[in-house]
């Protein structure tokens, strides 16, 4: 079984190889043509030999017939017949009369029996028998000369020609097979070298030059083309490597972090800026999911976002330009980043490239500016702008919830005197202390704002008249307490106007205007506080 398998495998490999097929082709072609060619040659040769023999027999026989003279005595005729027998290839001589009487019995091979032949090889007795008339001077046939010519020599010549033809055929066949084998080995060796080089090129081994010495033009052309392809690939690879190095250097030296992820969210590249941004080293992040770099509440949904985008193409970030998102540092703290994501197709795969910039400072700066724009720099309380904004929000909320809300407009008494007497430093210190005290007595949901100069506003969402009056009393009490500034005891009071939504106005201007009127009334009449449009008043503020 093993031998059968090996033979089968060898036959298969031979049939599938160029050498095997060339040899098989030669065998088939010669197997068909050689017998035809040599058969035809042998046939013509045999015909020639036989024709030559018959020609010799017929002409010689006629000649020998002329050698016999009718008038010769019997011994002389006998000598002539002996001479005929000794000449050429004759092995049978006989002379008889036309009526069949033997004048001289058979000489030569006594076992032969005369049977006249008209073709070479007739009667299969290896002798060509022929009878020719012996005529006298008048042309009358007086006897028949019967001769037998041996066909042996001609048969041997034909057999020799057969053998030679066979040897020449075999030699020609073997030489052809040998020549074809050599040529096919030369060709297949070259093809094998080209195949080896092709495989090396496929493996990326492009450095070794390829040269093939062959006299076969087509193979040489193929080898030259392969070498040209290698050189082109080498040059292209070098260019790609250079370009990659340049791009890598640029990416690595970018101030922005660059992160590439695949369709599953797995990180494929992570530049140095990203390392600085997130505190991770590239090797720690690559191969892991990008949600690692996000706050947990965002990370939980990130995979769903990618899946939805891949399925529907609906994007919140991809291709939408810079977006402000939150990143998570390795140490766990979160920070604002500006992120631009674009989709690329690399090698038939979809990948996402994100460019990130740390915007912590910018956000802080924005927050500061915003704070400065909405807060009083002295007291830290919301300024007039923010106060009005909060007032509108409070009114909107009350309107929606159909509830009350109150606005307290507070004006300090004797503040101008403090400023004039002790200077602005004292006035400023007094304002800061009042602000502090107001914050300390209000709820977290309330707003205490410096409305201007020595005027403060307190917004009380959800409070009606009674609630507002209670707060107003509390405010009067806390402001009435002395304020110590640089060993100076300052005592100021306050006048408070109260306006309630919706009774005293359904918009900010109306409420402020009514509260202002109530406050002036309280100040003029030294009432402490005054509820707008009512007689409700509070304790008298300090002088």
């Amino acid at each position, binding site marked *: 079984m093993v031998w059968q398998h090996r033979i089968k495998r060898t036959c298969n490999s031979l049939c599938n190889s160029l050498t095997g097929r060339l040899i098989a082709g030669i065998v088939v072609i010669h197997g068909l043509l050689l017998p035809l060619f040599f058969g035809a040659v042998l046939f013509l040769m045999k015909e*020639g030999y036989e*024709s030559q023999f018959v*020609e010799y027999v017929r002409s010689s026989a006629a000649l020998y017939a002329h050698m016999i003279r009718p008038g010769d005595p019997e011994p002389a005729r006998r000598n002539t017949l002996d001479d005929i027998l000794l000449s050429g290839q004759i092995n049978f001589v006989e002379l008889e009369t036309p009526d069949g009487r033997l004048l001289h019995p058979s000489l030569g091979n006594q076992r032969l029996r005369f049977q006249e032949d008209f073709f070479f090889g*007739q009667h299969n007795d290896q002798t060509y028998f022929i009878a020719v008339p012996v005529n006298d001077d008048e*042309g009358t046939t007086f006897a028949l000369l019967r001769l037998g010519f041996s066909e042996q020599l001609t048969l041997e010549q034909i057999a020799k020609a057969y053998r030679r033809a066979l040897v020449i055929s075999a030699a020609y066949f073997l030489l052809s097979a040998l020549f074809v084998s050599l040529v096919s080995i030369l060709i297949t060796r070259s093809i094998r070298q080209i195949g080896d080089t092709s495989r090396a090129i496929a493996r990326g081994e492009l450095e070794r030059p390829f040269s093939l010495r062959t006299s076969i033009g087509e193979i040489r052309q193929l080898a030259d083309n392969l070498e040209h392809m290698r050189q082109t690939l080498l040059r292209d690879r070098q260019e790609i490597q250079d370009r990659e190095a340049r791009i890598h250097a640029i990416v690595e030296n970018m101030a922005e972090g660059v992160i590439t992820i695949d369709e599953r969210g797995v990180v494929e590249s992570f530049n140095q800026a990203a390392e600085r941004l997130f505190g991770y080293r590239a090797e720690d992040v690559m191969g892991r999911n990008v949600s690692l770099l996000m706050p947990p509440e965002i990370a939980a949904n990130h995979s769903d976002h990618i899946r939805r985008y891949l399925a529907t193409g609906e994007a919140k970030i991809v291709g939408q330009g810079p977006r402000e998102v939150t990143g998570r540092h390795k140490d766990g703290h979160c920070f604002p980043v500006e992120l631009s994501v674009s989709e690329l197709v690399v090698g038939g795969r979809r990948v996402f490239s994100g460019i990130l910039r740390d915007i912590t400072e910018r956000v802080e700066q924005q927050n500061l500016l915003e704070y400065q724009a909405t807060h009083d720099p002295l007291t830290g309380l919301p300024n007039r702008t923010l106060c009005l904004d909060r007032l509108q929000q409070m009114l909107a909320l009350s309107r929606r919830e159909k509830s009350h809300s109150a606005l307290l407009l507070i004006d300090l008494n004797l503040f101008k005197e403090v400023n004039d007497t002790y200077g602005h430093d004292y006035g400023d210190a007094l304002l800061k202390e009042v602000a502090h005290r107001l914050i300390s007595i209000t709820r977290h949901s309330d707003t205490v704002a410096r409305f201007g100069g020595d005027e403060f506003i307190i917004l009380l969402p959800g409070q009606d008249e009674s609630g507002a009056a209670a707060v107003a009393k509390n405010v009067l009490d806390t402001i009435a307490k002395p304020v110590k500034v640089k060993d100076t005891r300052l005592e100021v009071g306050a006048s408070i106007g109260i306006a309630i939504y919706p009774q005293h106005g359904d918009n900010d201007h109306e409420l402020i205007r009514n509260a202002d009127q109530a406050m002036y009334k309280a100040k003029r009449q030294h009432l402490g506080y005054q509820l707008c449009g009512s007689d409700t008043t509070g304790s008298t503020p300090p002088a």
Partner: protein
Amino acid sequence: MSGLAGKHLTRLCLLLALLAPGIGTAIAEEKTLVLVSSRSAPAFQLTRKETRLLFMGLPVDKGGRPLQALLNASDPLAYQVFLQKVIYMSAQNYEKRLLSKVFRLGGRRPPKFRDPQQLLRALSAQPNAVSFMWESRARHHPQLRIVARLWSGSIE
């Protein structure tokens, strides 16, 4: 080439028939090869030597009329007997000689007939024409006259 092949094929068949054991020995037939001409032509005699000269392409006159030789190749055995008994040459050499004679001396080779019907028609059409065939065959055609007996013997 096809003529040559056909000739050899016929010869091969004949040989096979002759050499077949038990048949070759059984068949031994007396045959006579005769020279024939058209019966419409005046009777004339032709010696063996004249016959040979005529079929070698040389001019032979009888009664002031030049004779025309027609080669009968329709029967290979008769043709070979004729060559052996009259011409004393092989077929190849005979044809070579005829060709050589035409080249050297001009004239035309004796026409060769492979179809016996065509030969008969040619003999009838040309009163001066002579050809050879087996006597048994010649006797079947009353329009032919036997001019001479060329050979007689047994063939096995």
